[in-house]
């Protein structure tokens, strides 16, 4: 469903992404793994359109999306979260989720100015959808709280709920379990599994190789912007290159 071909990106002479190619099959759970600084978030930024690649292309369902602006790529069906969690801090939890939902004509300027009946109807429907999503994420009680007042774990869940609202074809999750307590980590992985069961595709970034062993169907390992391994978890854990990359750094 998603293909990345010969992607290259340089910053100040340093190759952040070095001739990277991989494929993500539909309805799979894939982990993009590697030590800090290996280029994982840069790859996400390129796929989601926030950064332009120097070379190479990104293909979604056969369509070349390399030069599309980020909002268009989001509409094509790629939904992403951010490493540093980008919520809308000074608005409510409910509104945060509402901003992920689509409107047919309700979010137009003219609908707003004239307060059209259509707008009001869609608003009611979307509010219901948002409430359902909050319930799914366990955040119903916090619906009126400002997003900036949530705990770290709650913020992660809110980010997930918001991206669910977008109803994307493929989820790009940047470090979805970072900083979470073990129990919340399990909840998050449980939600990811449920997503796969409902037919979705998930690509997520994680720097700790061990955490992804149980959940990922395929693991892609990056080091210094290059792909050094790709395969099922059992193969990856035995791969000498992977061990070298990790033992050479302080993580693991």
């Amino acid at each position, binding site marked *: 469903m998603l293909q990345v071909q010969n992607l290259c990106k340089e910053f100040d002479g340093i190759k952040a992404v070095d001739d990277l190619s991989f494929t993500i099959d539909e309805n799979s759970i894939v982990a993009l793994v590697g030590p800090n600084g290996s280029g994982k978030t840069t790859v996400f930024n390129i796929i989601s359109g926030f950064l332009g690649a120097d070379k190479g292309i990104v293909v979604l369902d056969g369509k070349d999306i390399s030069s599309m602006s*980020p909002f268009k790529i989001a509409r094509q069906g790629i939904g992403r979260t951010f490493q540093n969690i*980008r919520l809308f801090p*000074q608005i409510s939890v409910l*509104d945060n989720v*509402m901003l992920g939902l689509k409107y047919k004509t309700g979010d137009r*300027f003219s609908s707003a100015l004239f307060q059209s009946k259509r707008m009001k109807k*869609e608003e009611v429907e979307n509010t219901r959808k948002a409430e359902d999503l909050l319930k799914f994420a366990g955040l119903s009680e916090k619906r009126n709280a400002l997003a900036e007042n949530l705990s770290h774990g709650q913020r992660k869940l809110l980010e997930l709920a918001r991206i669910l609202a977008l109803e994307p074809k493929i989820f790009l999750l940047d470090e979805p379990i970072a900083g979470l307590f073990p129990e919340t980590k399990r909840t998050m992985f449980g939600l990811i599994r449920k997503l796969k069961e409902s037919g979705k595709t998930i690509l997520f970034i994680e720097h700790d190789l061990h955490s992804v062993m149980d959940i990922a169907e395929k693991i892609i390992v990056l080091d210094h912007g290059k792909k050094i391994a790709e395969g099922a978890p059992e193969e990856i854990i035995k791969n000498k290159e992977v061990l070298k990359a990790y033992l050479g750094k302080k993580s693991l």
Partner: protein
Amino acid sequence: MEYLIHILIVAGIYTILTLSLNLIVGYTGLAALGHIAFACIGAYASSLLALNFGISPWIGIIVGAILASILGAIVAYPSLKLKGDYLALATFGLGVIVYSIAKNWVGLTRGPMGLPGIPSFSIFGYQISNVWSYLILVLIFVFITYQAIRNITNSPFGRILKGIREDEIASQAMGKNVNKYKLIVFIIGAFFAGIAGSLYAHYISFIDPSSFTVMESITVLLMVVFGGMGSLKGSFVGAFLLVILPELLRFLGMPSSVAAPLRQMIYGLLLVILMIWRPQGLMGKYKFK
């Protein structure tokens, strides 16, 4: 008593300016510093149309507002590429450019000599010349502006504006065409500011560039911040309080050579105090972070 009505009229005009700027700065989070330039365009356009071509102010005010919104579209462009203080600088610069055109293109605007004798509005042949009727006229426009902006902000469209203010990148990741929204708010904000400018021109019946300096832009911004960003009721409060305040100084019997700089000093002090202690202003829900 008539003087009091005059104050209310001026406060009403500033309220329109404050509401329109609040849409851009308070709801969408764009640091726009040259807002009075839109009023300048509206004022000069409808005045010149009335003086040179005898066109009715009712038409002039709309033409002026449309021309102002064209400038608004132009000003929107820097907002697509610049953030925060750089955008503030760019919009400030555009404000200065409009002011200097008004001052130096003497062939068009008569420069510092200004345009005297601007006719007022008329209904069915009667000129609206007494303060009471003008007050009603201004209040009607204030009401229209308030309703329009309230509708705009109280809607899914308005929610998207707030999202842009909070985080542009996340907004894009949610599939929102951020550039389109920025363009629209500048056009609408400029439109209403243009209306305010025309109302002012046809009321005072004389305009010159000194009414449209960058200091005026900062004053309107102060009204938005003081009243509270993202709060429409706050815009009423901010505008009224900051119009009434200098009048109180006059009550204290100060000569204008003292009252004028003193008034500015209080504005400056208020700005500093707000930034340090209460960036959300009196009734605002949003802080400049």
